[in-house]
């Protein structure tokens, strides 16, 4: 082979402002749509939509669906579908409710609110979800039953396994420590929220910097330093702004008084405190970060996308696509278990209808977020934004006083429209 130098890197032509920032146009479009939605609702509701209280509520309502939507991205990217996530959530929730209210206190004799109860319960719930997910993945991958059928069956099976386990009863109240995973029952408070926000901002800037350094080291083109700085500033502002909003939502005085009473103290006159970052949202952020790293920086993620792009090529490249399917569904099941923790803790009980219709919300969130059902394309942040858009739409319309049937009509229409816009966008780009 003739020895020639490595590829020369061509001079970058002059580009406009947006191109220099190298922002993802799809992300920008989604954020734009979301912003228009929020501002629109805010105007119609006379400023009630964009209050710290409503933003706080929106966030905690989105968490459960958003967690599952990140897993659904991988499922859909590998050209599969999971119709059973809502039912699986219900089964996990039922198993956890039984564990913490009957099995641990009575059968093992730990009593109510034992300090180990929450941990055992969460482990049991996550294991339950992972196992069921892996089992469904095994049927799809190794028995080659179409995912649509396996999970359609699963949709009926797991919904009713939950019913059978609990005899259809609502089980509650749940363990007091367990409940910190749900919304208002567990928040970090203002101080720790700021700490988390600052740490996140620093990590974000460091990640940007290290990726730039890696590119420079290999002599690849990088965007101008000012563009990098602008993006860093936007990231920091977004993170800290979000924390500021959550901190601004104050805990009602009655509730604060009760919290002091529980500790045997008396609340000082005029004392106020913000909720800050809910622990469930912190979990979602952690899930988003981990799932994004899996998607972009691990072999597993690379194989997931390769398999979605061309299953034959993936197989011929030595990727065990059957085992990969099991892993993807097991991960989806794990996330259903995690969502079950958040959802049941938020409601403070397990009810028979928990997670009903979640499968459709989760799929819709992933698809609105730009995940292509034909496989190979999808992003984690897109799915989370998709979940947020769906939830905003729903609660915004409820706030305005739109009739329930109309709400669903609008959500359905938006779903179809969003996918159409995505198709048009892809065609413009010339991609398949």
């Amino acid at each position, binding site marked *: *082979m003739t020895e020639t130098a490595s590829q020369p890197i061509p001079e970058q032509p002059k580009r406009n402002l947006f191109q220099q920032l190298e922002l993802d146009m799809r992300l920008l479009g989604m954020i734009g749509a979301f912003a228009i939605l929020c501002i629109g609702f805010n105007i119609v509701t006379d400023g009630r939509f964009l209050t710290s209280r409503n933003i706080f509520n929106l966030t905690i309502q989105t968490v459960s669906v958003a967690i599952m939507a990140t897993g659904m991205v991988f499922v859909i990217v590998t050209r599969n579908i999971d119709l059973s996530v809502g039912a699986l959530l219900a089964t996990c929730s039922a198993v956890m409710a039984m564990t913490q209210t009957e099995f641990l206190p009575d059968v093992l004799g730990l009593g109510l609110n034992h300090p180990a109860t929450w941990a055992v319960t969460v482990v049991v719930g996550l294991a339950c979800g992972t196992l069921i997910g892996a089992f469904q993945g095994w049927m799809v991958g190794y028995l080659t039953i179409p995912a649509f059928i396996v999970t359609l069956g699963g949709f009926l099976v797991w919904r009713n396994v939950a019913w059978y386990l609990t005899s259809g009863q609502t089980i509650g109240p749940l363990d007091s420590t367990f409940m910190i995973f749900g919304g208002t029952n567990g928040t970090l408070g203002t101080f720790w929220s700021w700490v988390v926000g600052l740490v996140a901002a620093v990590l974000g800037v460091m990640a940007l910097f290290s990726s730039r350094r890696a590119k420079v080291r290999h002599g690849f083109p990088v965007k101008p330093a000012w563009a990098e700085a602008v993006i860093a500033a936007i990231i920091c502002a977004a993170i800290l702004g979000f924390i500021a909003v959550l901190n601004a939502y104050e805990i009602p005085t009655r509730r604060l008084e009760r919290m002091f009473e529980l500790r045997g103290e008396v609340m000082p006159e005029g004392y106020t405190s913000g909720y800050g970052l809910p622990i469930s949202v912190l979990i979602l952020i952690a899930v988003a970060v981990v799932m994004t790293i899996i998607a972009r920086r691990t072999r597993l993620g690379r194989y997931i996308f390769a398999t979605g792009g061309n299953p034959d090529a*993936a197989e011929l490249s030595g990727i065990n696509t059957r085992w990969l399917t099991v892993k993807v569904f097991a991960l989806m099941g794990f996330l259903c278990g995690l969502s079950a923790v958040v959802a049941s803790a938020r409601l403070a009980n397990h009810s028979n209808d928990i997670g009903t219709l979640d499968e459709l919300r989760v799929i819709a969130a992933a698809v609105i977020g730009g995940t292509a059902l034909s496989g190979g394309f999808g992003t984690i942040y897109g799915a989370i934004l998709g979940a947020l858009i769906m939830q905003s739409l729903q609660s915004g319309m409820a706030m305005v006083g739109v009739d329930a049937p109309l709400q669903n009509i609008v959500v359905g229409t938006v779903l179809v429209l969003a996918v159409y816009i995505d198709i048009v966008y892809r065609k413009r780009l010339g991609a398949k």
Partner: protein
Amino acid sequence: MKSAKQLRAEGATPLVEMKDISIAFGGVKAVDHVSVDLYPGEVVGLLGHNGAGKSTLIKVLSGAYKMDSGEIRVDGEKVEITNPRDARALNIETIYQTLALADNLDATSNLFLGREMVTPFGLVNDAAMEAECRKIMGKLNPNFRKFNEPVSALSGGQRQSVAIARAVYFNARILIMDEPTAALGPHETQMVAELIQQLKAQGIGIFLIDHDVHAVMKLCDRASVMKNGQLVGTVDIEDVTDDDLLSMIILGKKPEHATA
């Protein structure tokens, strides 16, 4: 280095021996007791009509199909190849007719698919892989520029060079090329021909599947012709003419003067 012909004459151990290979799909014998071999630095052409069984035979070697009976020896040692991973572990690389690229990934990801470089933390090292990709593409196709675009955005020739780069980057000893020039223009076909000469000189053994008798006459040392799943015969290219090969393909008759 001795030429493949000398090695054969001396009775050296072939790089690959496929002995008595059979594979059937639902009653149809796609490959019927076929034996072929390959020496280091040799190009063996596999010829035959569509459906003659040449692609099927070679997919047994690359691990895409499992044979029903027969045995494969590499360097004289019997080996088990049950999937593409086994084949890759034996340094058997394949350039498929369909190229087998993941269209949604970029050239670098495709080049390293299944064999990613990782950082000490176990994360894929994209920057290092892109640097390697730029190096090898600089040798194979100096005009290649689109490193960060999905391969669906590439031309046929560019896609072909990604597929070739993937096969030669990982120290292949045995290279299978399934109609490597089918989708290429004359200039790119010439490029592939030159590449085959380079790889030969490095002692790599190549199975070349092709329809085109002229290409086989030009590039190969020997040719094995198949018809209806059976081996018509293996001939030394120096001993035969285009017409001899054509009559083997069409009539399934081995010329009497050629014995290899």
